[in-house]
């Protein structure tokens, strides 16, 4: 069980790096979708399956794997951009930052006083690495949609942390977060459209000056 879970978390960490290294927004959104599905499958491996776990897993796969990416693709189409042209942090540096962050996360997780059942698992390093990846994307990209992707990857990291407590909280919190995130992305889709209409571009650097 642990082996398969680690494989999935490793896959999610690899997808993080793919998101950092690619300049095309459709690729980043597909990466996000794949990562959401991988994350949604994890509870099924961790707990014996009853209908509640299955329902939350199905909701996560549907929400993170299909609904949110679909909304992002629509926002992207409405804004008519599909590429991040000049990021603040270039692709090679952000890839190296992500790789360094992943290695640091693995090393750090070794030093943390974890519960014995979590020591062999990649959950904590995977969560830390995803949060770091999300931060790099949030800081390093200028287009609003890429920043949303960064925020969602960060949220995926938080979700991985939440899986540590799966035996205590029975997924109720995850279900709530999923709902919040979906509504959040829905709102962001509208905001992206507004930014596009007001400024003719999604470059968030243009939003820094306040004007009447």
């Amino acid at each position: 069980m642990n082996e398969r879970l680690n494989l999935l978390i490793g896959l999610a960490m690899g997808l993080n790096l793919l998101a950092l290294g690619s300049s095309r927004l459709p690729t980043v959104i597909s990466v996000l979708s794949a990562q959401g599905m991988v994350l949604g499958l994890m509870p099924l491996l961790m707990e014996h399956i009853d209908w509640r776990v299955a329902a939350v897993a199905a909701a996560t796969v549907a929400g993170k794997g299909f609904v949110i990416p679909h909304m992002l693709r629509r926002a992207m189409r409405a804004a008519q951009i599909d590429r991040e042209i000049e990021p603040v942090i270039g692709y090679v540096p952000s890839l190296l930052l992500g790789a360094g962050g992943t290695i640091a996360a693995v090393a750090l997780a070794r030093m943390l006083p974890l519960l014995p059942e979590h020591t062999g698992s990649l959950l904590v390093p995977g969560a830390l690495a995803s949060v770091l990846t999300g931060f790099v994307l949030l800081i390093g990209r200028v287009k609003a949609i890429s920043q949303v992707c960064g925020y969602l990857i960060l949220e995926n990291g938080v979700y991985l942390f939440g899986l540590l407590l799966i035996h205590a909280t029975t997924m109720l919190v995850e279900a709530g977060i999923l709902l919040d995130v979906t509504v959040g992305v829905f709102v962001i889709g509208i905001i992206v459209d507004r930014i596009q209409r007001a400024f003719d571009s999604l470059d968030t650097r243009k939003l820094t000056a306040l004007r009447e």
Partner: protein
Amino acid sequence: MNLILEIALRLLVWLLLPPLLPGLINKVKAWVAGRRGPPVFQLYYDLARLWKKGVVLSNLVSPGFVVGPAVAWVALLGAALLMPLGPAKAALSFQGDVLLVIYLLALARFCTAWAALETGSAFEGMGAAREVSYAVLAEAAIIAGVLSLSVQTGTTSLATMLEPSAGAGAVLLAAGLFIVLLAENCRVPFDDPNTHLELTMIHEAMVLDHSGPPLAVILHGASIKLMFFSVLLTEAVLPVGSLAALAGGVLIVVLGVGLVESLLARLAFRRVPLLLTTAFILCLFALLMAWKGGTA
């Protein structure tokens, strides 16, 4: 006496077999494109033809123009002799020979670039600059890959290092080393061996002014390098038990190169560092997995 005979035999293998690989790659490419393609032995014919021709020397060049390719060829052949061939181990093997191999490859590259700069031609300088700037990144990847094998097996001798499979990180290492193979041998996503436009060449631009036997030596050296990397990739990833398995692995690598070359376009120059960094990171994660013992 036996040892000398064995070394001579291996030398013969490394001299005779490598020019087959570019021919096979071209066959794969022709097959994908639906053409008949040049014969598999085309490079042998080319080498024979070049060997008979005379040398045209610019009156600007120093002897380095001829010495460079020769030293590069000898260095590549030396690296090849240190490479174990499956169950038939390497001709020479000692602790730390992997470092020697890396330095021999670097020496070969240095000598080719040096000979290219000798003529003072702008194109050759450009080619040399590109070759060495990509090599910086490719070398980081190959060192990380070799280090992961070394950590995995706890030795620094190529023969013992390549014997078992690469363990948990094998897939990562395979992907990383394959990208390095493409970059080091100037295959498609990095450089197009069929290009006739000097501005887009890398390796070809360095050898534009060479002719006759020096050019033959350069071409033969390039094919040795291709075979060297194919063998390295096969043995690093799979536990090769027999010579047939090794040959099969090399053939699969050649098929992969041919398919990549048929299906991909070459990358824009500014995107090349990204791909090489990816190779480095793949090898780095293989190293991480070897170091942390599979679980992390």
